[in-house]
């Protein structure tokens, strides 16, 4: 039952976006956020939208998945829209009703804000969450933060902890499943009763899970020592991340888009 939980939301694939260096992807995600926030007119949003659509198309991730990813922020989108429509004041009155006046600036602003949210979520998900495996992500974070280790930040240790946590999630899920079955066989009831009752019923699952996790940690530490683990110093890697032509090309495209957005912002603002 618990086995169906997918880790993160990674969709394995073979597209150019999947193959990009994960370090570049993290940087591009930040860059993408900058692009989205520098767009100020409908026209420049059009440019960003084209970029996002192109990313979705290249990554071969279905639109349904993208729409699903927008579902959790639906409330925020509606809230933002309503706030902007009713509380923005301007010059051109669209219509007036009782005490509420809606200005066309408000409507325009609401559309831009919602568009910004949609682009922000779908774009970052396509670049990073959907197309990068958690392992690659941890690896990239370790390498990107490496300079920080010079000032005493334990970057390698954090990355190791993260990757071991990822490695043990399926194992612990399996174990939880087993413990639940064992408790059910002895008459435990997890499905009925109020919230508090059900939360209490979880205690007999969590305690054995906790104890066994400590036992596992102990054994894993011994196994890691047996395999010569001694921290991050002098450690080499099987896979060395190397920037390839596609990484440079995609980065250049992103820089060009940022330039285009700024240009469109200043040149075509008057039009819309």
């Amino acid at each position, binding site marked *: 039952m618990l086995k169906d939980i997918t880790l993160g939301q990674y969709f394995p694939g073979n597209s150019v976006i999947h193959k990009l260096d994960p370090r570049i992807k993290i940087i591009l995600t930040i860059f993408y956020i900058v692009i989205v926030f520098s767009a100020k007119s409908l026209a420049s949003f059009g440019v960003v939208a084209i970029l996002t659509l192109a990313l979705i198309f290249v990554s071969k991730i279905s639109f349904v998945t993208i729409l699903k990813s927008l579902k959790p922020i639906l409330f925020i989108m509606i809230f933002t829209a309503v706030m902007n429509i009713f509380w923005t004041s301007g010059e051109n009155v669209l219509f007036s009703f009782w005490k509420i006046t809606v200005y066309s600036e408000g409507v325009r602003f609401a559309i831009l804000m919602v568009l910004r949210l949609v682009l922000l979520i779908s774009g970052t998900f396509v670049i990073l969450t959907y197309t990068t495996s*958690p*392992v690659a992500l941890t690896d990239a974070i370790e390498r990107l933060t490496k300079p920080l280790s010079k000032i005493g930040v334990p970057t390698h240790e954090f990355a190791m902890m993260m*990757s*071991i946590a*990822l*490695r043990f999630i*399926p*194992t612990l899920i*399996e174990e939880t499943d087993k413990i639940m079955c064992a408790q059910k066989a002895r008459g435990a009831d997890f499905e009925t009763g109020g919230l508090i009752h059900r939360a209490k019923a979880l205690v007999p699952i969590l305690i054995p899970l906790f104890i066994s996790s400590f036992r*596992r940690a102990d*054994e*894993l530490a*011994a*196994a*890691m*020592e*047996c*395999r*010569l*683990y*001694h921290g991050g110093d*002098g*450690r*080499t*890697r*099987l*896979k*060395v991340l190397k920037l390839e032509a596609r990484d440079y090309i995609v980065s250049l495209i992103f820089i060009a888009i940022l330039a285009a957005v700024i240009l469109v912002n200043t040149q075509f603002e008057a039009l819309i």
Partner: protein
Amino acid sequence: MEYIIKSEALSFSYDEDGNGKKTVENLDFQIERGSFTAIIGHNGSGKSTIAKLMCGVLEPSSGEIYIDSKSAGRILRVSCDEDIFDVRKTVGMVFQNPDNQLVATVVEEDVAFAPENLGVPSAEIRKKVDSALKAVGLYEYRTHDTHKLSGGQKQRVAIAGILAMSPECVIFDESTAMLDPRGRDDVMKIIKEMRDSLGITVILITHYMNEAALADRIMVVNDGKIILDGSPRNVFEKNEVLSECGLEVPQSTELVRKLYDSGAEITKTVLDTEEAAQAIVDALEKKYKK
């Protein structure tokens, strides 16, 4: 005899002050280079503790273990802090639970863990990983997720992870105990292969007698002491001593022994089912030819 592991007056206690009950008491033994030794004993006899002492996971309370390391080019001492890294490099260990010794989510990255820690250059790691995976027959699985493999396959990945370190001796601490019969057979086949074609010294900690029967030498441990030491045939012959420490010889051995005890003219000790069958055939032929 050229030894690879030699213990002298080895004692170990899990109590910090060392005054409590000793799990391992005053042991002296040698393990011959290139040999296949089985250490057997019931639960809590101290056999796993001995294993952990030999590969430097635990430090002896008193006494010493000497490891003759070819790769370090000298004799190492387990209780010496400067030597411990080389000890672990020379003597690898495969644990009981396959889930608790895999570090990475992808097979080949897990196998690469030890060479990565050694600081081997990437191209060489790749070579080591590939040959280790081929040795355990999992080369096609190199990009698979470790948690989707079966127990036997996981344990083979763990073995590959140790092999990639190029150890001179590998200790298996009840490594087949959690596997199904098929996984157990696969692992045992690899263990024998490691000794025969790679020349690695193998120490097998087990309570399965038919696995121990495959070794050249069996050491029986009870209450932290070695009470029997010899070839499987010699050890199985003393079945009274074995049953005193809660161990049972394989069924076929017991059957033949009972026939012998009740006065049949039959070989006293056999090691496996085939030998037992042959012994019974021989005995019957002898009887009816007379």
